[in-house]
Structure formats: C-alpha cells, structure tokens
C-alpha cells in the first residue's frame, strides 16, 4: 500500500524526546540464561560433595580408563572417576572464586571510599596508587603474593583477592568522584551530612549497578585466575582438588587419554560463561538499548489520505516559489504506534523564515528532522507529499541533491562538531565528496564562509579543533558550513539555546543576514517566542504533535491577537522585560 523508502540513516538520538525514560530494571534473556546457569553451578557445588564425595575419591581397579559406560569421562591414574571429581571440585573452585571476589570487593570498595573521604592530598596520592596497581597484570600480582605466602588454596584466594582489589578501588573512586559533583551530594554536604553518612546514604547506593556488573566480571576473572594458579601448581594442593588441578592432571595425559580434559574444561567454561552472561545481562539491564527499528519515510497513498481526511484533498501541485511543501505529515513510534506528530501540513516560501515554536514534546524537532530526511531511528514518518525545493523527498533522492537542497544547524555546537577532526577537515568533506570540489577549492570556500559569518582570523580556523573555539564561534562556523553547499533551505533546530543572550543575538543576526543576502529559506525551531517573533516571517505553534495555531505575521504574536488558548498561555508565560519605571510593582523599588 505504500511506496516505502528505507532511509540510509543510522541510529540517531533517543527514539523520541517525549518518551519518558523510565528508570528501572529490564530483564533480558542474557541475564536470565546467566542466572539459570549459575544456579545449576551452585546446586552442583552444594550437592555434589554430599552425594558423590566418596565416588570422587574412591580408588578403583581401572586406572587411566577412557570413555566408557561406567566412567563417562574416564578415570585418572588412580582410577578415580573424572566426572564425579569434576562435579565435586565445583565446590572448592567456586568457593575459592567467590571468596576472592568478595574479599576484593569489600577491600576495594573500602579503599575507594576511604580515598574519596580522605583530605585532598592523600586522595590524590591514593588515586595515583590505585592507577599504578591497576596497570599491573592481575596474575603478576597474584604470583607475587604466592611468592611471599607460598603455594596453597588459601594463598591463591588471598593472592587473587589482592590482585583484584585495585579494580574495585578504581571503580569506586571513579564513581564516587562522579557522584560527588552531582548536586544532591553537594547539597547534602552543605546541609551538614557527615562524610561517612554521605558515603552510606548517597554514594554507595547510587553505584550499585556498575558495582554488580564488576562483581560478576571479577568473579569470572577470579575463577579463571585461581584455576590458573592451581593449574601451574601454585593453588590448591593434593589431596584437595579444583578445576585447575584436574586440568593439570589431564594435561599430562593428553597424548594417551584426552577424554580426561573434557570434564574440568567444560565445567570451567560453563561456570565462567555463566558469570560473564550475568555481567553482560546486568549491563544491558542497567542501560537498555532500544533495539530500534530502522526509520522509514513513507508516502500516504491517495486513498488513505482521502479516507483520513474525510474529504477530497485537491491534487498536491507544488506552486511556484515554495521551498518546502509538507502535507499531512505524521510521525509515529514504530514499535508502539504512538503518534508523535499528527497530520501536520505547512509550506515555506522562497526567502521566507518559518518558525516552529513549542515546548518539549511538541514534536517540533521531529518535524524538522523529517523535512531533512533524517527521521530518527525507531520512528516512522508518513506524508501525503513532502517537497523540498522541487525535490520529492518521499521518492529516491541522491545524497548530492540532499546536500545541495538543505543545510543543517544543530542545537548544541559543543557536541555536534567532531572533536577529533579539524574544522577544515570536517567541513570540506561534503564539498569534496558530494559537490566535486577539489580539496583546495573546498577550503577556500569554507574560509569565505567563515569570513561571511564574521569569524575572526578565518584562515587559521581551518586547522583548529572544535574545542579551541567558543560556543558562539562554533555555531557561526556551523552556519558557514551549512551555507557552504548554497542550499535553498536551512533547518536550524534551537541553534541558540545553548548560547548566552548576547551571543544568541549575534548568531540570530547572522542567520537573518544569510536569509536576506542569499535568499535562503529558513525553518527555525525554537521554544522562545521572543526570538521567533523578531526573526521569523511566519510562525507555527505546536503542541503535543499538532499545529494549534498558524500566525501569518509576527506582529500578530501578542496575547490579544492570537486565537488559540495555548498560544495565549505560552505568551503569558514568556518572561518579559518591563522597562518603564512606573510599571514596576509596588514595594520593589
């Protein structure tokens, strides 16, 4: 029924700004699998020594047996059943790994919190110490401890605990540092909450998620490392046995009786995999990635359009002088079907600045992205027609054509420029790859653009990285880049929200100048009625995905002249500067 265009776009920002991000735990398959596997391990660890303890140590008259009916995984050189030994060894192995992990976690968290609570100098020193310790291979630290304490199971546990402590200490101190700059911690501190209570009440509870993930990972690591120590003879000693010692025995007979390796190897991998899956599952649960479907931009079929309208819509015929002609634009969340933008139609004439105002969740940014053919991931946009400068955006459009039609300016100049590339390098890409300019031409064009947005010292800007420019300068550079393809439409999504008011005015005047000098139309998204009033020719007011009012002359943007109650409410809520002294309320002068 529809003429689908699959956009070549990639995951964009969050699916929709209006979808409330629910904080909470999302169960997932990985976590459940991991927990189930780990439950099996625990049951075996508890039960096996009770039921199979004797069998595992009983000598039989069948030493070095291969795979057979009686001994599924063979017997060792003393004729002991390898399957039983493996199952029984689970208790010691898992017990040692758990003990080492618990010790490391307790010690590491204590050190981390201690370092965080300490006076500044000691804290600096402590952090350096932790960094130093972390950069060592865990096994080397474990071997040092084993060298000091001699070999044995307890030594191995202690050694692995010491070796993993630094990792916990580092995570704790990093998280604590991040948390202590959060306002709720600063406020509580100023309120007079004592440091240790601050740690117990605010710091530790808020780090539980990453900490649990590290516990799972550290357990997997400890399991492998302790078994490794036993494997090389530094861990548990005869007559006790764990996966590592069993593996060591099996290695010696690899040439003659390879079946022996199967039991301990499978058990070790199974247990370690369980822990890793729990870790991955916890990480995924704490930070659910919306498995968003790819975005789509579809054409409403005429019949569907008619049915929806309930009346005949005159044939869309792009009148001359229209740069944007959007009809019956609807954007919905693909998974839930929820409509975020509902049946929006509007036009932008050549040389016109159209403003869309609205509060968060009004759908104004989504509308703008869709006009640019950059529908965010997970969303589905439909329109009866969507033409930009005579190009049907619902059909096939070449990237070159898109680049020549539309220039984009984004909200936060701090994050929308690539921090790793110089301005010259990133701005010239579109010109060389899509418009066929040589590198030299492209750079000359960008310098000219920088000059036209009044960027001081334009030539040397090419070699600078974004972080070397102030916010206002970045945004001016961004406008220059958007203009570099000589587009017919500039889409500016809250381009001055992140800027100071005096800088905002400079940037707005540059947008206005580009509009006047080059005749470029502008789709300007903003939440600020004051800004829109002075910049735009016409204004659409959006609320909850719908256009509630169209204002054809910005002179009409006053409480008395607008029609819709929401527009009135918005205007009334917009703070105004009163300059007449007589207007100041009584008792305030």
């Amino acid at each position: 029924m529809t003429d689908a265009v699959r956009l070549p776009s990639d995951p964009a920002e969050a699916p929709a700004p209006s979808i409330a991000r629910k904080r909470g735990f999302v169960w997932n398959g990985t976590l459940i699998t991991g927990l189930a596997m780990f439950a099996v391990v625990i049951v075996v660890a508890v039960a096996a020594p009770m039921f199979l303890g004797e069998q595992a140590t009983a000598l039989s008259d069948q030493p070095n047996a291969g795979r057979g009916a009686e001994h599924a995984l063979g017997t060792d050189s003393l004729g002991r059943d390898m399957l039983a030994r493996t199952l029984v060894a689970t208790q010691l192995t898992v017990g040692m790994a758990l003990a080492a992990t618990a010790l490391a976690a307790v010690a590491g968290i204590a050190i981390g919190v201690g370092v965080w609570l300490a006076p500044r100098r000691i804290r600096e020193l402590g952090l350096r110490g932790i960094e130093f310790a972390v950069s060592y291979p865990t096994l080397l630290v474990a071997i040092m401890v084993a060298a000091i304490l001699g070999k044995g199971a307890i030594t191995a546990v202690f050694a692995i605990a010491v070796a993993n402590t630094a990792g916990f200490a580092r995570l704790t101190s990093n998280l604590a540092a991040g948390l202590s700059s959060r306002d709720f911690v600063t406020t509580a501190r100023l309120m007079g909450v004592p440091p240790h209570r601050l740690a117990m009440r605010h710091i530790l509870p808020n780090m539980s998620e990453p900490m649990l993930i590290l516990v799972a990972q550290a357990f997997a690591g400890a399991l492998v490392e302790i078994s490794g120590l036993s494997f090389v003879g530094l861990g548990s000693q005869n007559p006790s046995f764990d996966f590592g010692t069993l593996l060591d025995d099996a290695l010696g007979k690899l040439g003659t009786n390879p079946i022996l390796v199967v039991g301990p190897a499978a058990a070790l991998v199974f247990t370690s995999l369980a822990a890793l899956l729990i870790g991955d599952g916890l990480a995924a649960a704490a930070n659910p990635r919306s498995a968003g479907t790819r975005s789509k931009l579809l054409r409403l079929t005429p019949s569907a359009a008619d049915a929806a309208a309930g009346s005949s819509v005159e044939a869309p015929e792009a009148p001359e002088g229209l740069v944007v002609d959007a009809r019956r634009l609807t954007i919905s969340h693909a998974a839930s079907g929820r409509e975020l933008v509902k049946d929006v139609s509007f036009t932008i004439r050549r040389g016109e600045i159209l403003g869309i105002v609205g509060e968060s969740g009004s759908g104004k940014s989504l509308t703008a992205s869709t006009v640019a053919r950059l529908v965010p991931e997970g969303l589905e946009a439909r329109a009866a027609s969507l033409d930009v400068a005579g190009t049907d955006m619902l059909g096939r459009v070449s990237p070159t054509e898109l680049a020549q039609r539309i220039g984009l300016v984004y909200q936060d100049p701090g994050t929308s420029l690539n921090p790793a590339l110089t301005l010259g390098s990133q701005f010239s890409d579109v010109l060389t790859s899509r418009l066929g300019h040589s590198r030299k031409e492209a750079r000359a064009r960008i310098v000219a653009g920088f000059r036209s947005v009044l960027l001081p010292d334009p030539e040397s800007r090419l070699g600078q990285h974004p972080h070397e420019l102030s916010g206002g300068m970045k945004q001016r550079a961004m406008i220059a880049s958007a203009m570099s393809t000589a587009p017919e439409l500039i889409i500016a999504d809250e381009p001055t929200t992140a800027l100071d008011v005096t800088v905002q005015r400079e940037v707005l005047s540059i947008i206005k100048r580009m509009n006047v000098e080059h005749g470029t139309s502008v789709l300007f998204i903003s939440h600020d009625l004051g800004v829109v009033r002075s910049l735009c020719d016409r204004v659409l007011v959006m609320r909850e995905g719908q256009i509630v009012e169209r204002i054809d002359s910005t002179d009409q943007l006053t409480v008395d002249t607008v029609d819709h109650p929401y527009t009135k409410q918005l205007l009334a809520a917009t703070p105004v500067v009163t300059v007449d002294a007589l207007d100041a309320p009584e008792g305030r002068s």
Partner: protein
Amino acid sequence: MSLPSPHDEPPSDAGGAVGAAHAPATPDNGGHRAGSNAAAWRSFLTRRGLGLIVNILLLVLATFFIVQLIPGDPATAIAGENATLEQVEQVRTELGLDRPMWDQLTSYIGGVAQGDFGDSFRYGLPALELVLTAAPYTLAIAGVAVSLVLVVGVTLGMAVGIATRGDRNAWLDRSFTAVMSVMQSIPPYLQATMLVLIFAVWLAVLPPAYSLAYGTVESALLPIAALSFGGIASVSRIVRRETAVTQEMDYMRTARGWRLPALRRFAKHLVPNLLTTTLTLSGIILTSMLGSAIIVETVFAWPGLGTTVIQAIAIDKDYPVIQAAVFFIGAISIFITFVIDVILGIIDPRTLGGQHD
C-alpha cells in the same frame, strides 16, 4: 571585523559611550594558538616521565618486599623444612637477611641500579641473566599476540558494529555476541590445552611443546594462538559496543546531515573517536595478556619468563630469580601503559591534559 571587545568603545548597538570598565580580554577570542600543542606535549611528557620513574621505584620496592614479607623467618621458609641450620644461615647471608632492613634496602636498590638482583640459588648464575635469556621468548609471543589482538579485535569489532547498526543484521549481532562470549570465557591456558589436543595430538602437525626438533616459529604458533583468542574476543566486544555508542553521538548525526558517503563517515569521522575510548579500555587487557602468557607458557614448556618465574616459585624457591622476573614483567607493563598514553595523545590531543575517563 572582529567582535566588539570591552576594551573598545561600547559597541554601536549598545548606545553612547559610558565608562566601560577596564574589563579583561574578549570572551570570544578563540583561545589556543599553535604553540599550545607543543606546550601540552611538554607538560604531558614531563608528568608521565616523572610518573614512569616513580612507578619503577615503586616496583623496586615491591620486589624488595617479596622476600621481606614472607611470614615467619624468611630464611627458614626459603631454605625449606628439611634444611639444616647451616643451609638456613647460608640463605640468610646470601640474601643479606642478617643485616638491618634499611641496610638491605639500600644495597638492594644499589644492586638493581647496576642490574644485579643477586645470583640464582639453583643455577648460581646472575638472576637477571637468567631472566634476560628467557625474556625474548616471552616478548616474542606476547608482542605478536598483542598486535594480533589489536588489529583483529579492532577491525572485527568495528566491522560488526557498523554492520549491526540500528536493527541491521540481527543474526550477526546475536551470533557475534554468542561466539565471542564463549571465546572470552575459555581461559587462555585451557585454549592452549585444547589447541595441543587438536593440532599436536590429533592432527599431529604442530609440536605439543617447545622443542628444538621443530623450528621456533612452528613452536610459537600454538602459544600465540592460545594467548590471542581471548584478547581478540574481549577487544572486539569492547570495540563493537563503542562503535554503537559513537555512532549515536551528535557529530555523527552532523556527518549524516552533510550526507557524507558511508565509508567516509566511518573511516574518517568515527574511527578517531573510537580509537580513543578503545585504547583506553584495551590497555588493561593488553597488560593482562602478559599475565596470561605466564601461565600459557607452562602448557607448552615455553622457555620464557612465565616458566622461569613459576618454576622459581613452585619448585626452587629461587628468590633472586623471582625478584628479577617480577621486576622485568612489571617494567614491561608500565612501559605498555605509557606507550598507550602516548598513542592516545597523538590521536586525540585533548587527552594530554590528564584524566580522560
């Protein structure tokens, strides 16, 4: 041409000239010059150079205390339960344990400075000489394995990350995660054992252990493989995740807004940002491979540092050798961490400032 500065007359749109205060430099003057980069490098190298020296000193102290911290009487413990009194005393004098601690420490540091860790109890040769004989074997397999892990891990992770962006190729996403999780959960020494089983016992194409009957390269293949697989799994999973995260950054949306071709977006705009986080996260994996090498070597009787140090601990209680080997391995991991920071600085000069996490 330039912006109105508070030094100047008040800007035209602000009206008449009223005593503008002697305010400081313009707020919008663009900041850094070219020279700042060199200065950043200088301070970075000074700071990290000092750190390097401090870390080496800490390492010297740590190896010194290996003997000091042995519970009870170190000399008795080292000489063993069955040693005669004379043997114990001999150990005591050889390690200098009969002297005051401070005295021991200064002579230990003096010795280390000249490359003297004492003589091996077992072989009677200088301990460092034994370590230096074994070192090339370890460095060879660890070096090849680290390069493999970086090249294969990063390429694979990025390729999968790009191929599975959005909801693309869900099957690839699932099978990649499954295979890599299993590979990551098999310890290197177990992989070594399995490789021996397959290639030495069943197929009989490669030697099960280091042997002069085979060439060094043939003997090294299995240890390198055993060492690399786990690292490749971990690194490629990190890179895949980081690829997904980086693709959702605002500047990648900007690149899409420029309608850049996919190859240019990924190769030029994504990769440098990806490498920064990847290297930061991989540093620990790379140093931990040194630790794994210690154990993997014993499977193949590979005559490297691992075999040396484990034999010294488990069998010989050869403390001068232990100290020298631990020092050497520790120094290499400090060096790897340093090199990674330098590479990070080259890729992304912002990391020169210090903390990047």
